[in-house]
């Protein structure tokens, strides 16, 4: 019973707390996490489409830049070459130089591929130089595809230039070849802003950087390491099927980057946004979710704590109450006002305690009664709930006295354990008989016993019952006497009975209550007992008169008893 008290193996509070906490917080966490995940996905998708559309718009702006140049150049290849149109061609070419700052020089080639005019902002012009340009890549390229974009060339390893070739609708209108300063794309590219710090840049067909908001980056040239990084970046975006990817940009920063090709060239426009900025809404959403989840967890912990305590607290109270009640403190009351089943249970406990108190009081009373009443009589008296039967009254009773002959001499000459063994056997034998006959044992001192019949509970024919009991007592004890004698104990047993009116009732004080009878009949029975020999049952004449029909009596004549003036007739009950 060690586990009955003290700490349980697993505390109910802890169990309740854990279960409640999990029940509250798991759905909250799940919701929060799924929200965060879907938010992240949405934001990624949004970012992707934003960067892609920015890249496409950037590419179309670059295309517009090139288209503007192309449209201006197309003015120079309207007219067929002849002596009459030479001046007009020259004016057209001057017009292009005037209109398009990016054009550094312009070369007009006639239908036969012969250079007719070369105008430059820096170098000396050439008029009708007659140089054969038909093998120039720009000329042959324009001849086959009408519009031809040359590779990006880095003048002195720094400034990006490009050659454009454009042929007229008719062969005779010739071909125009223009050298373009691509640094002017800077105006276009630096105007592209994505968010706060997002930017765009362009790589040529060999992955060299030729347009970037930081012009120094372009002019410095692209080193081999960057070339490889850019090639990988381009491949990564291709593999992602055009989706924006997270990558290192040209400054080795982490960015989200999208790409779009510039049609007609091998160029790719990249639009990037720093990862920290691009994901800032995602991060802030995640932080918000984390904060909410933390708050939710704290809230669920509080809730779980409160609920668990509400559950486990009353149970603790019940346990405490059970301890008190178990220890016999039946006045203890468990105070629980939860308004639920636990309160009902506490009320049950309280009722039980009250019941136990009543029952204990009763059993105390019974045990008190049992001291002088036969157990069944005691039960009866107790069950009736009325102890008035124990109150003092006059009643006709049969008083039975019995004791051992020669006990004083025996007790003087024997060992205590022998004496106690004899008394134990003796009392045991008599006790069961008295109980069976529902007689009342008023007192015993050593070997002497006083027994009442018909008090406090009345019975039918008390005289006969008393004599029957005496006979049985004598018979049983005689068996013991035979044993004792065989052991050398000189002991005998005598019984005396008298019937008559006596005052019966409870006497004594708190805790030491006895039931007794007072009256002449008691004295008479005592005297008769003293007068009886071993194996003799002596009765007085009144009892003899009553029992005559049922027993065989032997008149022993008249005897004088101490305290009695007249001699009394004494009868012995025969028993065998």
């Amino acid at each position: 019973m060690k586990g009955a008290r003290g700490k349980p193996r697993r505390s109910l509070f802890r169990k309740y707390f854990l279960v409640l906490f999990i029940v509250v917080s798991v759905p909250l966490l799940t919701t929060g996490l799924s929200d965060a995940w879907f938010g992240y996905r949405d934001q990624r998708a949004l970012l992707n489409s934003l960067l892609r559309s920015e890249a496409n718009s950037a590419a179309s702006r670059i295309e517009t830049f090139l288209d503007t140049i192309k449209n201006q150049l197309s003015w120079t290849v309207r007219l067929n070459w002849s002596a009459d149109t030479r001046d007009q061609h020259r004016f057209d070419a001057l017009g292009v130089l005037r209109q398009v700052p990016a054009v550094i020089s312009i070369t007009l080639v006639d239908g036969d591929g012969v250079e007719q005019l070369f105008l430059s902002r820096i170098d000396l012009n050439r008029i009708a130089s007659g140089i054969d340009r038909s093998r120039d890549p720009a000329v042959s390229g324009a001849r086959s595809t009408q519009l031809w974009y040359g590779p990006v060339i880095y003048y002195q390893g720094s400034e990006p230039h490009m050659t454009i070739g454009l042929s007229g609708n008719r062969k005779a209108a010739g071909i125009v070849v223009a050298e373009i300063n691509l640094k002017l794309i800077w105006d276009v590219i630096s105007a592209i802003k994505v968010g706060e710090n997002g930017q765009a840049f362009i790589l040529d067909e060999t992955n060299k950087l030729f347009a970037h908001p930081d012009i120094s980056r372009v002019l410095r040239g692209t080193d081999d390491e960057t070339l490889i990084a850019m090639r990988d970046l381009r491949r990564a975006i291709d593999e992602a099927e055009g989706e924006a990817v997270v990558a290192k940009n040209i400054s080795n920063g982490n960015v989200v980057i999208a790409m779009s090709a510039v049609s007609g060239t091998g160029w790719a426009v990249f639009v990037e946004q720093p990862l920290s900025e691009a994901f800032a809404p995602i991060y802030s959403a995640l932080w918000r979710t984390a904060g909410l989840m933390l708050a939710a967890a704290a809230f669920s912990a509080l809730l779980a704590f409160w609920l668990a305590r509400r559950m486990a607290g009353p149970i603790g109270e019940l346990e405490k109450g059970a301890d008190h009640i178990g220890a016999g403190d039946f006045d203890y009351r468990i105070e629980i006002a939860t308004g639920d089943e636990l309160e009902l249970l506490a009320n049950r406990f309280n009722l039980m305690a009250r019941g136990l108190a009543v029952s204990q009081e009763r059993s105390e009373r019974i045990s008190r009664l049992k001291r002088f009443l036969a157990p069944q009589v005691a039960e009866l008296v107790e069950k009736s709930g009325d102890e008035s039967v124990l109150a003092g009254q006059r009643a006709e009773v049969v008083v039975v006295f019995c004791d051992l002959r020669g006990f004083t001499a025996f007790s003087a000459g024997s060992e205590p354990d022998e004496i106690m063994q004899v008394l134990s056997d003796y009392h045991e034998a008599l006790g069961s008989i008295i109980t069976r006959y529902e007689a009342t044992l008023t007192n015993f001192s050593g070997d002497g016993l006083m027994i009442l019949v018909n008090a406090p509970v009345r019975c039918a024919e008390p005289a006969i019952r008393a004599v029957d009991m005496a006979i049985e007592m004598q018979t049983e004890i005689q068996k013991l006497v035979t044993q004792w004698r065989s052991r050398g104990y000189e002991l005998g047993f005598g019984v005396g009975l008298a019937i008559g009116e006596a005052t019966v009732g409870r006497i004594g004080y708190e805790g030491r209550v006895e039931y007794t009878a007072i009256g002449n009949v008691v004295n008479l029975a005592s005297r008769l007992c003293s007068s009886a020999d071993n194996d003799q049952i002596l009765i007085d004449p009144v009892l003899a008169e009553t029992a005559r029909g049922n027993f065989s009596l032997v008149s022993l004549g008249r005897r004088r008893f101490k305290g009695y003036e007249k001699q009394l007739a004494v009868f012995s009950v025969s028993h065998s």
Partner: protein
Amino acid sequence: MGFVSMRSISHKLLHWMSALIVALPSGAVGQSDTATIPRIGLLTWSACEEAWLSNSSGPFLRGLGEFGYKPGESVLIECRSAGKSYDGLSEAAADLAKLPLDVIVGDSEPVAHAVRTETSTIPMVMIISGDPVDGGLAQSLAKPGGNVTGVTYYATELTAKRLELLAELLPELTNVGVLANPNVAYMPFEEDAKRAASRLGITATVYQVREPDDIVEAFLRMKADGAQAVFVLPDLMLANQVTKIAELSLDHGLPSMGWGGWFTPAGFLMAYSSDYYTMIHRLAFYVDQILSGANPGDLPIEQPTTFSLSINMKTAEALGVEVPQGLLLLADEVIE
């Protein structure tokens, strides 16, 4: 020998110690000024308040303002003027190089050379008229590699181009008088002009002028030699004397060709160049980069993207010159 070197060492030591003693208290007092506020040195040919580079409404300080710098507050400007002489230029450069400057800015190649002579450590942002690599100021345009960076503008190529434009304006031109300052003879302008002239079939005669006072005499010689036009080569002194040259040209009935936007308003018939105003404005970008921690040797030297032709029609009328349509078509600025 030993004694001498010992003495020189102790001399140096003494110099350093005295420098420390002088520097310590002033350093402690002015620390917040010198330590946190960047200092920019400017070197100009003319007076500081006149020059485009240092003028408070000029392109450079306007450019700095666009980058968020406030002269006197977030940046300290130290300007030194050459006093319109090449000797003064060297002195001013030496003066500037002694100051604790974060960057020195100049608007011409002679300034760059003058400062370069004085310091090879202080970052320099310059307009370099000649080829910066040939001039020994940079290893390459992409990676200058030294302490000089800035803008360069095909000045030598443009010399030929100018002569061609002059020839286009004056189809009868056979003899041109070239004004040049021998102080900048280390730049190949004279040879460029002669080479271009021979390609164009023109005779170019160079008249060297060191001082403004020499100009009048040069014109007299030019006129005596039968020059049909005046061609001015890049030089700071000549650039400063545009009004005088323009007047003399008109007086002698000579069409004049200049190399900067300010020549035509002063009375020159024509000028062709990259836009100086834009280039000086661009220098602010380099200064910002350097003040932000960039190494000048890593900042590529840029070339201009815009060139402008300007024509003064009043001068043309006064000279009785008819300007061809082709030139008018190309001209960015026509002064009526």
